[in-house]
């Protein structure tokens, strides 16, 4: 199924003294959805946040190994790599919808303005397609200047996706994007991910295994900071190779 968009090679991560990730080798296939599953605290978010150098914001974080971003093959977690440059190439959506206390329009425009050097008209031209890709345009097109905080939770989360898409990221990271939403809003987000997956590479953390089977092409099972098993979603869920994976999938722990 296509080329690799990114690839973790022997990735280690430390929070201070505590090693949260151990030698992760994980391929991220291009224009496909990769789901990260595993019990709470196994390192899913930690892995995701390595991919856009989010850990750099906090003291005591230490990376080891590599996360290569293709086509150029730059090592995202390399010491000499500018984290801001990496974050500009990669989008992220968080567990809790976190729109800025600004208008809907300004939320979507935020990343473009951060890049600088864009004319007003260029920004305006990018806002509409981003909202359309996030399946939010019809609901907000008449109130782009209203505060984003007036939207419902599901709308806010789709706005966060639009905000991330506006800058045309090469890779989209989603950390349990539906865990704070009701079932209807969750279905909306899942539909959106399915619509996006042929156009953009997505890595999604989820604790909901049904969700992983519904929306992902590839699944990685993490346990205690290690990658236990990786494979095509269907195969991994139907015929897991490792005993731990099977135990988790059948609900025997986690």
């Amino acid at each position: 199924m296509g080329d690799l968009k990114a690839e973790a090679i022997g990735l280690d991560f430390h929070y201070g003294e505590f090693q949260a990730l151990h030698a992760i080798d994980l391929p991220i296939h291009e224009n496909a959805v990769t789901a990260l599953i595993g019990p709470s605290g196994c390192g899913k978010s930690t892995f995701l946040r390595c991919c856009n150098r989010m850990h750099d914001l906090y003291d005591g974080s230490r990376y080891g190994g590599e996360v290569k971003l293709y086509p150029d093959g730059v090592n995202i977690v390399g010491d000499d790599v500018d984290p801001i440059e990496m974050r500009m190439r990669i989008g992220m959506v968080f567990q809790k919808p976190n729109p800025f206390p600004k208008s809907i329009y300004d939320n979507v425009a935020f990343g473009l303005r951060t890049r600088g050097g864009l004319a007003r008209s260029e920004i305006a031209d990018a806002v509409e397609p981003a909202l359309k890709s996030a399946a939010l345009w019809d609901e907000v097109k008449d109130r782009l200047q209203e505060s984003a905080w007036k939207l419902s939770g599901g709308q806010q989360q789709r706005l966060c996706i639009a905000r991330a898409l506006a800058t045309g990221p090469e890779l989209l990271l989603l950390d349990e994007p539906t865990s704070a939403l009701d079932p209807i809003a969750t279905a909306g987000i899942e539909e959106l991910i399915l619509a996006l997956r042929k156009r953009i590479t997505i890595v999604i953390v989820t604790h909901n295994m049904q969700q992983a089977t519904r929306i992902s092409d590839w699944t990685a099972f993490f346990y205690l900071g290690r990658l236990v098993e990786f494979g095509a979603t269907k195969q991994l869920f139907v015929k897991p190779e490792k005993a731990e994976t099977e135990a988790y999938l059948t609900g025997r722990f986690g």
Partner: protein
Amino acid sequence: MVAEAPVVTHGSPSGGGPRGRGLSRPGARLRWWSERVIEAGLLLAALSSIGITIAILYVLVSESVAFFRVVSIVDFLTDTMWMPLFDDARFGILPLLAGTLLSSGVGLAVAVPIGLTSALYLSEFAAPRTREIIKPFLEMLAGVPTVVYGYFALLFVTPLLQRWLFPDLPGFNILSPGLVIGIMIIPYVSSVSEDAMRAVPMELREAAFAMGATRVEVAVRVVLPAALSGVAAAFALGMSRAVGETMVVAIAAGQQPNLTLDPREPAATITAYIVQVALGDLPHGSIGYLSIFAAGLTLMLMTLVFNVAAWLLRRRFREAY
């Protein structure tokens, strides 16, 4: 980030033994009573502030009523002269109001930019250790006695201004105490704004960082707007402090009521006038003496407006998250 770990607990939490608490136990009645008494005492202490506020208002209003029997409210609000000691006395509050607003305005012009910048620095940039060093110094600014600030304005800032900026500046002027009031209220503006900034959830900052924003962009484009109502509350608090400031202006502004918009001129503020009369030898009950209550009431109403504004704004920013 939520620190969650697959923790398995064995057994049950150990309790503190049997918890018999029968009402029949001797001493229970006594404890009930002593708790009621303590509670009543606490309530009394809490109510005392309300009582004192009401008492102050009562004095101000009743004496002001006596004043306004002689001087009409219209004259009080529109007359452009405040000359309480002349035979043909005039009681227009405007000159005092102008002096008050001018000195507070100068003060805010100093305190807002500096207070806000230091709040942004402390909340968004300073390492915890730097913060621990800087904060006590900031707070110390608020602890310096105002008399000291007054003489600082008169004997240091005014000569400095005369030497470097305005050679013709009179020895008494509004500008110099205004600047010093500004320094004095920096800690109020900065600590209230900093609280508002620190209350901005980390998720908002992370969202901006994740888009490739720099620290300055996050501070200016995300944290500041998100903390805006708290910052506005800080301004209102600073303003109410500045308006009520007495000693600095009494010492360094000259005590001449002067309807002017030029801060380089000497002028009196409402507060400076009140101390001047209260410490002077006007006979109690005279109209000049009563005038300080009318002036005091005006001041209290102004301060009230700023405090209510601050309170409303702060409530709004608490509700935001």
